């Protein structure tokens, strides 16, 4: 039935991308388009006492400079600034008033006829401030954190620490072996290659079309309408291509408000493009201080685990995910306890970044497990098998599927793990120390309500439409494959419309939920089309399908075919023409199947090899094997690439990435690609991705999603490998060479 699902189909937008014809938000043009450049605050906290735009206004070509003093009206209540994924608190209001709550906050927008004039004039805007003391260092507030509140709504419960189970205190006291460690992850920034941009086009009827870089066009549309006081029909948001986002495009970003504000003020189309530097005042992965205590019996089973975390958020919003909960979920353990506090700093609000909470929380857990394995003198893989759990430990329920055991086995086999000498510093390659480490990974398999519209034409072409974005993951390709299979059409007879707020409703694209949601949405909508086709076919004289039940027919090669007897078939075109139907259109909302009795997760086992120059401490990650259990893989090419990308993100997290703040000014010091290090080609050696078979019936297509799972566990596997190579346990990321110096710990 499925010639395309499960294959290595090349992306449908590949041609547009390699020829440079794929258009991104900053590339839409409009008559009289003006260019705008944002000015950021230079203090972290305080108030603007005076803002001087006269020099900027004198620059040839400058049209206006918007500030809080002369901007058009903006909503004056917090509710209006909320969005689909806003955390609790008081959302930031761009250009609202003179109050400064983080360094780099937009304080002015210079609009000019050319980008050059706008950028130059922006450098001439001067502001005087009344400064107030600020705090931007998590360490100064680690003991004064705000405890995450007890959950009230089901959504809160997803993010708040789970309830304690058992009696961890006494259990730890009675443990044969106990490990107590503190781990640190710094602030990291997403750094998608495309800078954030919005082109606000004023249409001839006065409505706004915003070409925006976002992971959720309808989220942005609703937000802009409420912030600007506009009607739903007045704003359309389009995001056909997104040059990467990784979570920082989930919430509407301020450049969209600025572009829309300026367009409204001038009655003229305006484009705002942030510079690379300015993107460091968007969201970030929160820095995290975490302490894990694990107690084990001598036989390698866990008897208690406690996980305490402090994470960064802003003064105005409380961002948190369930950072600590992963620790009590993954392994069989009767006693567990969690605590999560927020260090509220004078920074922008933290936000989701690839594998939010799991990338950081599981890093600490999996390093702690490695330390425990060493203390117990048990092989790290063996330890995880002894602690293996077939049931969700939080709610004591089974998994819809969990092939993590196969991940351990197949990953270890492919890596050659059995030849590992367990002693640190025992393996060498010339003067380089060789280390092998491993870790487990886990992520949620979410599915969300989504609406899909399909229009099937009698000429055999299908148009599939949904407002979801494709942030580079391959959503459009997956949608094409699924629709082609479900409708029995070749790939090139299917076209996909997405990234437009006027299309059927979609949640934001994130959390790895879109592949499962939209694929099942397409399947459900295609079902409705198939039923209508069968009804039409049955109307034909002497129809070979009359009296056939809908479930007994399939769509294959442009034919409606009985599954029991494939001689009984009717051409789609004939059935439609007979009833003079040119087009069948169905729009169906598909909700996830209620299945609270089971847990839904993806899993991985990650194996890493590092080589460390003994004298200089230079680390190379020479091999990674990532074995993934994530249900059915729709497209092995795009899914493999998701995992490869995730692994390389893990390399960056382990060895390179760290946002450095000068706490005197509360300002990011390395706000550029030269000094915020993302991995480069030479950092990437052999990476093998294995998808283990995992049948899942949580949704009709058995899809779980792979966008996040690739990064989870990678940093821990590398940190563990570094320990194995050097005998040195570095518990704060990134593991830079200076931290490797000194005597083995």
């Amino acid at each position, binding site marked *: 039935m499925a010639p395309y699902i499960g294959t290595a189909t090349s992306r449908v937008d590949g041609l547009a991308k390699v020829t440079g014809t794929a258009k991104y938000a900053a590339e839409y043009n409009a008559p009289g388009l003006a260019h705008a450049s944002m000015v950021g605050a230079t203090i972290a906290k305080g108030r603007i006492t005076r803002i001087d735009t006269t020099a900027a206004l004198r620059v040839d070509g400058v049209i206006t400079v918007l500030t809080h003093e002369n901007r058009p009206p903006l909503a004056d209540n917090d509710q209006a600034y909320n969005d689909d994924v806003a955390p609790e608190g008081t959302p930031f209001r761009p250009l609202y008033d003179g109050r400064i709550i983080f360094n780099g906050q937009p304080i002015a927008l210079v609009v000019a006829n050319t980008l050059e004039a706008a950028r130059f004039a922006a450098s001439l805007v001067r502001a005087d401030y009344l400064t107030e003391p600020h705090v931007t260092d998590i360490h100064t507030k680690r003991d004064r954190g705000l405890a995450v509140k007890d959950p009230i709504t089901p959504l809160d419960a997803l993010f708040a620490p789970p309830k304690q189970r058992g009696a961890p205190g006494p259990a730890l006291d009675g443990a044969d072996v106990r490990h107590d460690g503190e781990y640190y992850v710094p602030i990291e920034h997403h750094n998608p290659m495309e*800078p954030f941009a919005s082109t606000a086009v004023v249409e001839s009827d006065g409505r706004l079309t915003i070409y925006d870089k976002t992971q959720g066009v309808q989220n942005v549309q609703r937000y802009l309408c409420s912030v600007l006081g506009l009607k739903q029909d007045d704003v359309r948001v389009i995001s056909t291509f997104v040059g990467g986002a990784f979570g920082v495009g989930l919430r509407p970003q301020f450049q969209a408000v600025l572009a829309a504000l300026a367009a409204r003020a001038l009655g003229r189309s305006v484009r705002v493009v942030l510079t690379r530097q300015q993107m460091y005042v968007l969201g970030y992965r929160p820095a995290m201080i975490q302490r894990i205590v694990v107690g084990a019996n001598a036989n390698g089973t866990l008897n208690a685990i406690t996980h305490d975390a402090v994470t960064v958020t802003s003064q105005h919003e409380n961002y948190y995910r369930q950072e600590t909960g992963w620790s009590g979920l993954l392994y069989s353990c009767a006693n567990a306890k969690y605590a999560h506090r927020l260090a509220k700093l004078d920074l922008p609000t933290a936000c989701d970044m690839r594998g939010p909470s799991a990338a950081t929380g599981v890093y600490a857990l999996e390093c702690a497990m490695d330390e425990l394995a060493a203390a117990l003198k048990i092989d790290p893989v063996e330890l995880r098998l002894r602690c293996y759990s077939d049931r969700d430990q939080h709610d004591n329920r089974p998994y819809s599927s969990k092939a993590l055991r196969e991940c351990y086995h197949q990953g270890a086999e492919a890596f050659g793990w059995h030849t590992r000498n367990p002693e640190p510093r025992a393996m060498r390659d010339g003067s380089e120390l060789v280390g092998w480490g491993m870790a487990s990974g886990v992520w949620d398999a979410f599915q969300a309500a989504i609406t899909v519209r399909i229009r099937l034409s009698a000429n055999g072409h299908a148009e599939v439409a949904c407002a979801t974005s494709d942030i580079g993951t391959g959503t459009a390709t997956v949608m094409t494959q699924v629709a082609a299979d479900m409708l029995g059409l070749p790939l090139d007879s299917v076209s996909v419309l997405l990234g437009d707020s006027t299309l059927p409703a979609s949640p934001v694209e994130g959390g790895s939920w879109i592949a499962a949601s939209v694929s099942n949405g397409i399947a459900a909508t295609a079902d409705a089309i198939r039923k209508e086709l069968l009804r039409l076919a049955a109307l034909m004289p002497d129809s070979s399908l009359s009296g056939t039940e809908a479930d007994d027919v399939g769509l294959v090669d442009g034919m409606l075919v009985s599954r029991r007897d494939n001689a009984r078939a009717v051409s789609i075109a004939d059935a439609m023409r007979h009833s003079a139907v040119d087009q069948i259109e169905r729009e169906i909302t598909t909700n996830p199947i209620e299945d609270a009795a089971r847990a839904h997760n993806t899993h991985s086992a990650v194996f890493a090899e590092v080589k460390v120059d003994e004298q200089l401490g230079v680390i190379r990650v020479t091999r990674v094997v990532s074995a993934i259990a994530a249900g059915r893989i729709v497209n092995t090419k795009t899914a493999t690439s998701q995992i490869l990308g995730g692994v390389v993100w893990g390399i960056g997290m382990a060895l390179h990435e760290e946002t450095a703040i000068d706490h005197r000014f509360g300002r990011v010091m390395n706000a550029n690609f030269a000094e915020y290090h993302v991995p480069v080609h030479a950092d990437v050696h052999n990476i093998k991705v294995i998808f283990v078979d995992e049948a899942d019936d949580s949704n009709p297509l058995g899809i779980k999603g792979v966008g996040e799972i690739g990064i989870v566990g990678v940093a821990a596997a590398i940190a563990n490998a570094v320990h194995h190579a050097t005998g040195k346990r570095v518990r704060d990321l990134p593991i830079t060479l200076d931290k490797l110096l000194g005597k083995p710990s």
Partner: protein
Amino acid sequence: MVLFDVPGKLNMTGQIRFVLDGEVRELRGVAPTMTVLQWLRDDARRCGTKEGCAEGDCGACTVAIGERRGVDDMRYRAVNSCILFMPMLDGKELVTVESLKHEGRLHPVQRAMVECHGSQCGFCTPGFVMSLFTLYHSGKEPQRETVDDVLAGNLCRCTGYRPIIEAAQRMREYGAKDQFHRRAAATARQLAAIERRDTLALEKDGQRYFAPANLEEFTACFEQYPEAALVGGATDIGLWVTKRHQRPETQIYTGDIAELRRLKIGDDCIEIGGAASLGDVFDALLAEFADFGEILRRFGSVQVRNVATLGGNIANASPIGDIAPLLLALDAALLLRRNRETRLLPIDEFFLAYRKTALRNSEFIDAIRIPRARSGLKFRAYKISKRFDQDISAVCGAFALQLDGSRIAEIRMGFGGMAAVPKRAANAEAALIGEAWNEASARAAMRAIERDFEPMTDMRASAPYRLKLARNLLLKFFLETSNQPGATRVIRRDMAA
């Protein structure tokens, strides 16, 4: 105001000419600091070329520049269009991602990227395609190491790079020749026809730009405008414009001056013109000093090395530049020139204080003279950075040793990242002169290094780490030059002295 008060043959047409998609384009009224990227995206509406950082770090804006090689052939080099000024295109061919598709068919590089899934979000893709295009035209075999080099300046945040590396290795399977090969002779003739032999002079909004075609006109120009910014590759000055929004009033471009791009390999020394690009001199320095090549390989990216100049890196006087430490160790001298006056200055007298040099008014670096490698010279250079490629050094150390029998006759050590200027380790050198080259003497010198430097702590490295590195680099140098067994490099190199 007299805009152009310069003797000599000024080209006052106010026009720059270059070839794009087979046609000569003539542009007037271009601002001297307008970047090629800006022109492409805003004026020419060719939005395939992207801005990812506007400072030459990410490669999303990579385009290829074609230059004539002889009468009927072309060579293509990758450059970052975000920090390349439009007038620098004068006389060249510009190739962008839109230029590649031909007669409705994808270029072999583009096909390989599609088939290997080398694109995800697609934003970095055009830059990668153009870097691969230059590799395709270089004729080099796409070995893994070569591919890493060529793509070191292109960042991708989605693919994890492996699919792109595979595309690089397979691109020739989709066709060994392209339309650029086929029309190379015609393009070369087009470029010959627009070649300029006079000084291009442009003016826009109070900004002046001169591109002299020879040394004489250059010196005259610089005499007249001693405050002018000398622009070679604009890999630094480009950032003044894109980041600090400065607009240098007068720029003098040195890239068209053949004399200043000279490379002479004499019996005693290698002489490199002050405006020679790192790409121009790479092979010669690699052949003479293997480790010089090794450091250059990790200096910026291909896009940066293709335009950045050796002279610029020295005159810039950055305490963390990677060239000066090597030149200090190699006992190089700078030929400084002001009009017809020249003087030869040992490089260790050039750096006076933080970003302050011995250059006088209207004086410039005419050439860098590096003594040839004498027999028995042991030279090693090491760059330690957080990220192996495309990163600024925490410490760069270079060592040159000449033994007289078993005794040390000469030793020079140059360090970057250890002081406010690139600096020799005088105490450590003194501790070694006349001594035997053994571990005891090396360790004594390591102790002496601590008296040579008081490095600072910043986000690249802490002061104790820098000091430790400096000491251990000396130990590494000892190990590598005293027939100690075992590899001491992350990347293998020929261990022969």
